[in-house]
């Protein structure tokens, strides 16, 4: 029995980009169906069509065998189809509770029931969300959790998740996947878009791989021989090797010194509670921790986006030109790009103080800008129709590539990389890790904040574990071990036994 079926779907965006071409896709009742594909393959587009957010240029949609035409997402919701989007769709000024409530518009609503359900779900998933907190005060990872909760609360029977785990950490991903599995046993049908092949292999019943707007294969999980086979289907190449982390040992010259830093969040709650560390030239310092333990505020303070309450951040420009601090923010759409401006402008967005692009302090040098943008695009293999295209028309991963490429190719002394590979396909993620490693060998100090512990272990020379606003331990690379790190991450936290949603309203 099919829960939903897409037949011969073609989507041509205004502007002529063919994002999907004659795509067939079906979703069986009670299955978890993983949708894989490189950045820009057309996964998001296809699922937006199934959830009524986009209208196909041609093709047919069937739900439970019945032909349907969606004029808006609410039509799809009525048919029981709901979606967690790649770019978050929460209202920042509203509280978490109000945002959850928004997912239930048009349904019979009972506050008390919703609160119990939220609490149950949060316990199962190990999420910790404060319901009365405004969403703008949350980190991206926390927002992702709220979004997942919202869809699970709604009465949808067909659940579409577009890269839901990109900002979650290991144990949370496990719980989330386990929940998906148990939901599928209960008869929910689930589409999971992801770049993490292991995730897809772990949880799905079937896997569909897309490339350049077409479906290249739909496989039962048992048919998949090994993971590298999937990668080959996706990008047409064999699996990429792991980054060899053989860098010259870094110097002890501190580029960035943080002393007794105390930082509050937007609500005035103390999030960073006295953090001190030094970032040396030529090292990657990984920051590991469960989302919401002060990483966001720490990074924002260092990047100059948030005024610390107390403490010192010392960054000495050693070199007048490259003596800058670059920053890859986790909040891509909000801090990373100006969505309506072109790829070219976004590539030089942070360099408008640079003689190279702005002559005599006022005149833009477009040919130089385009030249640099071309370098970013080819370095990261960004899929864009042209340099003039507004970045909001690119796929999520391609937007991310522009930000990362820009920050890596712009000379710097210190680079803060927050979730640098979240949302990138395997090949691009590899590219980025390699580039970060190379930057470090050239003497740049890199502060790597990531929810992906494997990534941190792979790249870092030292690993600082942050828990409840404090750095509880700094591991040298040699002594680092995932289990140890994990236990330190949960030190001030106790994830696993007493995690529950803090339910408080008004």
């Amino acid at each position, binding site marked *: 029995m099919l829960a939903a079926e897409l037949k011969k779907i073609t989507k041509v965006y205004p502007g002529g980009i063919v994002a999907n071409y004659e795509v067939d896709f079906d979703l069986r009742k009670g299955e978890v169906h993983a949708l894989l594909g490189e950045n820009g393959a057309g996964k998001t587009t296809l699922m937006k069509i199934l959830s009524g957010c986009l209208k196909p240029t041609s093709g047919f949609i069937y739900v439970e065998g019945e032909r349907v035409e969606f004029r*808006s*997402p*609410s039509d799809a919701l*009525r048919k029981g189809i709901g979606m967690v989007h790649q770019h978050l*769709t929460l*209202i*920042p000024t509203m509280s978490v509770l109000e945002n959850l*409530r928004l*997912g239930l*518009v048009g349904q019979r609503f009972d506050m008390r029931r919703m609160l119990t359900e939220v609490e149950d779900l949060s316990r199962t998933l190990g999420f910790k969300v404060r319901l009365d907190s405004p969403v703008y005060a949350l980190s991206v990872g926390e927002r992702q959790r709220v979004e997942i909760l919202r869809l699970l609360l709604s009465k949808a029977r067909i659940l579409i998740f577009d890269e839901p785990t990109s900002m979650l950490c290991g144990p949370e991903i496990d719980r989330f996947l386990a929940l998906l599995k148990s939901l599928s046993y209960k008869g929910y049908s689930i589409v999971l878009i992801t770049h993490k092949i292991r995730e897809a292999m772990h949880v799905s019943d079937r896997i569909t791989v897309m490339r350049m707007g077409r479906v290249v294969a739909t496989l039962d999980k048992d048919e998949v021989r090994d993971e590298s086979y999937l990668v080959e289907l996706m990008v047409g190449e064999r699996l990429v090797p792991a980054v060899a982390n053989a860098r010259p040992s870094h110097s002890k010259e501190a580029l960035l010194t943080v002393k007794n830093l105390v930082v509050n969040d937007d609500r005035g709650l103390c999030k960073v509670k006295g953090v001190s560390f030094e970032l040396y030239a030529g090292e990657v310092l990984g920051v590991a921790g469960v989302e919401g333990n002060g990483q966001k505020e720490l990074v924002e303070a260092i990047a100059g986006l948030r005024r610390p309450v107390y403490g010192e951040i010392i960054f000495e420009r050693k070199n007048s030109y490259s003596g800058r601090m670059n920053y890859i923010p986790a909040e891509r759409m909000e801090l990373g790009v100006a969505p309506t401006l072109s790829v070219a402008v976004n590539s030089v967005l942070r360099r408008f103080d640079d003689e190279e692009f702005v002559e005599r302090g006022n005149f833009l040098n477009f040919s130089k800008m385009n030249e640099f943008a071309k370098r970013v695009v080819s370095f990261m293999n960004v899929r864009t129709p042209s340099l003039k295209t507004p970045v909001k028309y690119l796929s999520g991963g391609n937007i991310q590539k522009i930000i990362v490429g820009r920050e890596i190719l712009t000379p710097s002394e210190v680079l803060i990389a927050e979730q640098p590979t979240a949302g990138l396909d395997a090949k691009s993620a590899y590219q980025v890790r390699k580039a970060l490693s190379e930057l470090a060998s050239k003497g740049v100090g890199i502060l790597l904040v990531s929810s992906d512990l494997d990534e941190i272990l792979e790249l870092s020379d030292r690993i600082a574990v942050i828990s409840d606003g404090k750095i509880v331990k700094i591991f040298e690379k040699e002594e680092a071990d995932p289990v140890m790190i994990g236990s330190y991450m949960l030190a001030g936290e106790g994830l696993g036994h007493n995690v529950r949603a803090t339910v408080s309203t008004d």
Partner: protein
Amino acid sequence: MVSVEIVVGLLYSSVSLLTPILLAGLAELLVERSGILNLSLEGAMLVGAFTAFMVAFYTGSLGYAMLAASIAGVALCMLFALLTITLALDQMVTGLALNLLTIGITSYFYRASFGWYVSPIPPHVETTLQPVEIPVLSQIPILGKVLFNHLPHTYAALALVFLSWWLLFRTESGLKIRAMGEDPQTADYLGINVNLTRYALLVLEGGIAGIAGALLSIGYYNMFLDNMTQGRGYIAIALVILSRWNPLLLLGAAFIFSFIDALQLRIQAFNVPFLPYQFALMLPYLFTIVLLLVAGRKVKGPASLGKPFKKSR
């Protein structure tokens, strides 16, 4: 020595001057919460004032006059909605253009009906809207006189303050309205019909603004004058910003404004030497600017206020 009489009189006229601005402001507040900046509020009040006068003049029926005024207001706001929602034109420019249009149209048809040379005694209607004394309550000393002997519209406006607060912050519809004011794309993804809701709110605003305008021509006066609203619509919009899009604060802001308006009318009447009446006229507006400077500086409105929303599908 300021006598009680004078203070009561002053407060009474503040409340009564308050009515049209409060009505218009509340309607605009709801519309702005949904993300639409409707400057043509001013025009809707003006066509309301004009239509009410014409209908009252020719039929003698105040009921028909009010009805016609609200229909006229709705018609103008629907034109605005068509241009800005369906065709996604710029809201600011559209609103201003419609306002200039209404000034022209009302003055033109006024002259077309009553002759091109306005006579020294302009045409006027015989009966105007009358206050309703609320039985027991109006007997309360002072308060009764200030509050409980007004046009029915005043009571309605006061009730509407609480009603719209309740709607915005205590109902699902309110949640939807606020959500689309912040981010219409997200609201759409969540299954909220953004354009339909916005149209509905503009119908409401048009109706209320038309009535608010009618209060001027057949309530407080008995005639129509060119550009009779004199920027009251704009003031209502300024007060909405001042009130941080909160109906309860709007009541406060609108009251202070009308109090100063009432005060300046007295100053004019007293003919204070060395103080030309134009200065008094200026006071309420000066006050609005000062208050905006003091209280309205860091105010952030609905995030998508005034931005055209086009569903890309």
